């Protein structure tokens, strides 16, 4: 008799445990590369924090997994032909995680928050062209700009303009950065710089979503350890997976390797205001001197594609230009013609990461074959940005060649061209470190922004890209491929071309 009671308890316990595992929670753990400093979308500038914010926040518009613009909290937008007045028709029946209804007032509060210079928010430039925001009715908002900006709707898809609950803003003030309250598929649970936990939003406005109960982001900087996490099942999705680990990952039956295109372009910027790069023939020669296929094979283990236009294919208004074929003989001929039959010496700057150094060494080897002697100078991030972006006058720039990359976070050609190749974008305004200035390219870039008409913009950007491709202010190198590893049980998590993650449709089997 005294034996029966404990046994009953034991049996009951096992039954409960068994039943519990049958309705086990579907928990998704995503392993990422770096810490997430905080979660205020108007103040973050790294794609990782933005990815985490994307699980909890949404903007008027958004991006699908291929960086195509899609409506989100706004159902549609009317734009006038001067691209200065935007009327957003908001979605009905959406509430924030704390119950506050999402309406035009909320939009006004959020936009004005970012616009307000006293808030010192680093994403302010996304809305700095806004003159005023008017609430027409609870689900209609009119935004009036002080100058035409055809890409404004893209700015409304950028995480910097995600909608935060006005009640939470009032309640938390600056601490909103560690207490996110949005309209997204997941609700905030806890924050630590290396671990962010979220849970399912039961009243999410998209029916049938989300499919998992929790999403946790864990920062694991060492790629070998991240891969180990995937192997042990501690994580079901890891990004990025370095190219070196693709083969071992593919050899494991329970794992999948997902490869997708990105909008990250890698190129060598040449200071077109300095000798010898002011001579078009020299710039052309350098483009002919690099075997781009070998570049992708050696530096990226084959997981990159060659650039065939000044902007990557997945960017809005991309226009394919062609190729700069590998022709060292022609390169030498051009150099002689330009007055450098024995080549010249030059410094090549870049970051100190392993990949950057590998790329720079490769370029050093390629250029050596045509007589250009390169000294590789990897510079620490702070020093590099100071030497490149803090230069006040073009004549003072000491950069000769810089190996760098760029990703247009608005998904639009404007941000892929204007900050880098527009004559008004010389440092310290923006990032035209090649000091490239072409009146015709300038005109085309301006035309692209002056209208919101898709076909007009497309024509303008096609022209701009053609001009830039011929002028070769850069040695055009490669476009990254994004590599992620996931458990075969997982589907619905996407690696977006800008490097961000979309976990809304995550499903675990």
């Amino acid at each position, binding site marked *: 008799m005294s034996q029966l009671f404990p046994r009953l308890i034991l049996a009951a316990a096992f039954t409960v445990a068994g039943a519990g595992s049958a309705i086990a929670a579907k928990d998704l753990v995503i392993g990422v590369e770096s810490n997430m400093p905080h979660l205020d979308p108007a103040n973050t500038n790294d794609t990782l924090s933005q990815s985490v914010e994307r699980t909890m926040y949404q903007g008027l518009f958004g991006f699908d997994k291929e960086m195509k613009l899609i409506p989100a909290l706004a159902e549609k937008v009317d734009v006038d032909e001067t691209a200065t007045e935007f009327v957003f028709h908001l979605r009905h029946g959406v509430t924030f995680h704390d119950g506050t209804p999402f309406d035009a007032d909320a939009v006004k509060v959020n936009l004005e928050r970012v616009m307000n210079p006293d808030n010192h928010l680093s994403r302010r430039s996304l809305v700095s062209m806004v003159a005023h925001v008017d609430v027409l009715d609870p689900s209609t908002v009119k935004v009036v700009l002080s100058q035409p900006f055809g890409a404004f709707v893209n700015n409304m898809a950028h995480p910097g303009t995600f909608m935060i609950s006005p009640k939470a803003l009032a309640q938390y003030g600056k601490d909103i950065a560690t207490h996110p309250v949005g309209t997204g598929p997941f609700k905030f649970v806890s924050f630590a710089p290396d671990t962010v936990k979220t849970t399912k939003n039961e009243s999410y406005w998209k029916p049938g979503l989300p499919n998992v109960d929790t999403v946790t982001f864990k920062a694991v900087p060492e790629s070998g350890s991240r891969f180990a996490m995937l192997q042990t099942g501690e994580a079901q999705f890891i990004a990025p997976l370095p190219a*070196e680990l693709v083969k071992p990952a593919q050899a494991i039956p329970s794992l999948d390797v997902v490869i997708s295109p990105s909008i990250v372009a890698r190129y060598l910027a040449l200071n077109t205001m300095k000798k010898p790069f002011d001579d078009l023939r020299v710039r052309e020669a350098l483009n002919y001197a690099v075997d781009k296929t070998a570049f992708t094979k050696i530096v990226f283990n084959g997981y990159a594609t060659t650039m065939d236009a000044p902007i990557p294919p997945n960017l809005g208004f991309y226009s394919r230009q062609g190729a700069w074929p590998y022709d060292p003989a022609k390169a030498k001929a051009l150099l002689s013609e330009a007055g450098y039959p024995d080549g010249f010496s030059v410094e090549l700057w870049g970051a100190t990461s392993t990949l950057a*150094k590998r790329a720079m060494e490769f370029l050093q080897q390629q250029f050596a074959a045509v007589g250009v002697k390169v000294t590789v100078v990897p510079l620490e991030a702070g020093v590099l940005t100071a030497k490149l972006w803090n230069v006040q006058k073009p004549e003072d720039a000491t950069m000769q060649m810089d190996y760098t990359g760029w990703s247009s976070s608005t998904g639009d050609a404007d941000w892929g061209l204007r900050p880098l190749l527009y004559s008004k974008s010389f440092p310290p305004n923006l990032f035209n470190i090649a000091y490239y200035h072409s009146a015709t390219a300038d005109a085309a870039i301006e035309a692209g922004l002056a209208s919101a008409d898709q076909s007009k913009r497309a024509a303008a950007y096609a022209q701009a890209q053609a001009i830039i491709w011929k002028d070769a202010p850069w040695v055009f190198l490669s476009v990254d491929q994004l590599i992620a590893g996931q458990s075969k049980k997982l589907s619905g998590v996407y690696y977006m071309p800008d490097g961000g993650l979309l976990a809304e449709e995550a499903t675990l089997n």
Partner: protein
Amino acid sequence: MTDIVVSAVDIDSPLSAFWRRMRRKRVALCAGCAIAIFMIAALFAPWVAPYDATTPDYDHVLSGPSFAHPAGTDVFGRDIMSRIIWGGRVSLTVGFVSVALGCLAGTTLGLASGFAGGFLDSVIMRFCDVLLAFPGILLAIAVVAVLGPGIANVVYAIAVFSMPVFARLVRGSTLALKQAVYVQAARSIGVRRLPLILYHILPGTLPGVIVYLSLRIGTSILTAAALSFIGLGAQPPSPEWGAMLADGRSYLGVADHLTVFPGIAIFVTVLAFNLLGDGLRDALDQRLG
């Protein structure tokens, strides 16, 4: 009649007695020869190494050890064995010189501090406390900011942050040795301060110093590699051992030979210095006996 201190003076000169003892330590002598061989190989790298350290071969990247390439090839197809030989120039120099400099400076400070005591001791130790508070990375960045990048400055940077360690080590031993019987005896017969420190106290601190010096050589080679990640130190395509290790990190489990062979090079070097150091210390030790 000789007293204890005087009996420490040998019949033949100290130097030849030391050398006599050293000659008997075969292991240490072998180690010394090995080090000499490494240095010569590094010096004559153009003739010793089978391949050039920087010529790429894109058709044979990341291949494992084979007859053509005993240590395999790296991500650009360069022969790793040759790069290790060439790399010896930088790594052996950086490894040894930087620690030796730090040792010299630190030992001097430690002796002065421990022997003098009082205010001088406080000042020197507080100065070391300030240095110790700055992690190596920061001090190295400071050196770069002031002196500019380049391998010579790596040497100075590492010397600067190993100095306070030697200082504290030597000071500790000095404090203890000050009280030792033979030191008190020497003092009582009027031996002056400087010879006292140099001939009676310093040898007593040497065992600790030699052990730490020989161990740190490996660490400083590795540190030099870590510093390259902040833009300090040997720049590509320099075949420095630590840099080769760092570059091989992402290939662990895929192309292990990238890290194993430079690691072995460092291991053998440090082992040789340790064996030599032990021999030196033992040979010196009997002088005190």
